[in-house]
């Protein structure tokens, strides 16, 4: 431990993490803005018009990053929840709680933009495709997590119960995905194939990656902002919170 330059465990305490998060948030907002602006510029002005789908395909630059983030955030949320359960650290559970609404938002955004994309391309708002269905179930899992945490008054118990639910969900997400996929191939004559991605121009891929980075940075910034609020709420009885200048004023 004595060789490490920064003592990382120091930041597992809400009191020292609160100011650190405050200092980090502007940087993540800045990164989100930079990635977002360059990604949007690339996706609207540089990326070529798709030969088959015309201009409508450009919603992919929001849709795909949102889907990626919805799954990624769930994994991170479950990882924080698991850490909180194992090490009994308060901050980990707060992080999990802070990430849940962002993940749910991403899942919702992915479904929403997906149906906007589906209407002009396949002529329908919704199809029971494997990806759409499992994304919908992922949204349900997020809502279940948030609802369970909201229903339990004791925050420590809410953290732990939520952690178990998140971990059970993590085991289930791949099972649900594959079951829905097999269900889909068995039950429907394949109406549309989403899986056959056409060879994608490099600029399109780059635009998508930039937008994904933007969403990622946004998710971090918002989660840190939210975790700061949660810290203030839960640690309101402590002296260090009472001495904060935003609390005093």
């Amino acid at each position, binding site marked *: 431990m004595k060789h490490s330059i920064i003592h990382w465990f120091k930041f597992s305490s809400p009191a020292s993490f609160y100011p650190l998060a405050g200092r980090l948030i502007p940087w993540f907002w800045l990164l989100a803005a930079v990635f977002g602006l360059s990604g949007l510029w690339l996706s609207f002005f540089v990326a070529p018009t798709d030969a088959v789908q015309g201009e409508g395909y450009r919603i992919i630059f929001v849709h795909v990053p949102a889907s990626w983030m919805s799954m990624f955030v769930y994994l991170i949320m479950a990882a924080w929840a698991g850490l909180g359960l194992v090490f009994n650290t308060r901050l980990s559970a707060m992080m999990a709680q802070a990430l849940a609404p962002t993940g749910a938002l991403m899942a919702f955004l992915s479904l929403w933009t997906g149906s906007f994309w589906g209407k002009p391309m396949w002529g329908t708002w919704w199809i029971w495709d494997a990806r759409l269905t499992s994304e919908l179930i992922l949204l349900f899992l997020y809502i279940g997590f948030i609802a369970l945490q909201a229903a339990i008054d004791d925050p420590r118990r809410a953290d732990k119960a939520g952690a178990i639910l998140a971990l059970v969900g993590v085991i289930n997400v791949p099972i649900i995905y594959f*079951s829905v996929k097999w269900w889909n191939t068995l039950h429907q004559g394949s109406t549309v194939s989403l899986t056959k991605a056409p060879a994608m121009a490099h600029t399109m891929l780059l635009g998508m990656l930039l937008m994904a980075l933007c969403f990622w940075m946004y998710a971090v910034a918002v989660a840190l902002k939210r975790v700061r609020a949660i810290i203030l709420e839960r640690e309101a009885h402590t002296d260090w919170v009472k001495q904060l200048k935003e609390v005093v004023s």
Partner: protein
Amino acid sequence: MNALVAIIRRDLLLAMRRKSEVLSALFFFVIVTSLFPLGIGAEPALLHKIAPGVIWVAALLSTMLGLQRMFAADHADGTLEQLALSPEPLGLLVSGKIVAHWLVCGLPLVLLAPVMGLQFNLGTGDLGILMLALLLGTPVLSLVGAIGAALTLGVRGGGVLLSLLVLPLYVPTLIFGAGAVYAQGSGQDAGGHLSLLGALLALAMFFAPWATTAAIRIAIE
């Protein structure tokens, strides 16, 4: 092992002393399945097509009804704490409660399903597969449901919350369970679906009692 048998016997005895609760969940199953032909129309071909899905969804909902009872009464009167303090591992006792729940809420569905299937114009081959699928699938429902039941112990609005937590996790069971009957009906081999149901059961038997135990310890600490 004695403890496991004892807790199963105790829970079955308690269920028999309060038959109305058990029977109401079963009648719920019968009523829900009977409502579908009234809503959709009694055309035999259509009924035959929707039968597996309807019977399975009704089975999910009817199992849900019994889930809340699994730990709630024991939690309220302190029995659950005594169980946690006992020298026997809590996981074993929890497994016993899950088995008892399945015997009371799951097994009757397996036995009732052929009767409901007849209403829906299913053939004998379909009925056999339906029973087999329910036999493999309803224990998964009890096992996964137990996690939700333990997590929502003593929580405000527990019943509605429980369904919100548990129903998304029931999706794979529903898909493979109903899928087996569909496969049989359309002349395919149902073996693949049944094997997957068996795999889900094995996975749930391993993980669910463990997660349920952890959730119970959180609830009573």
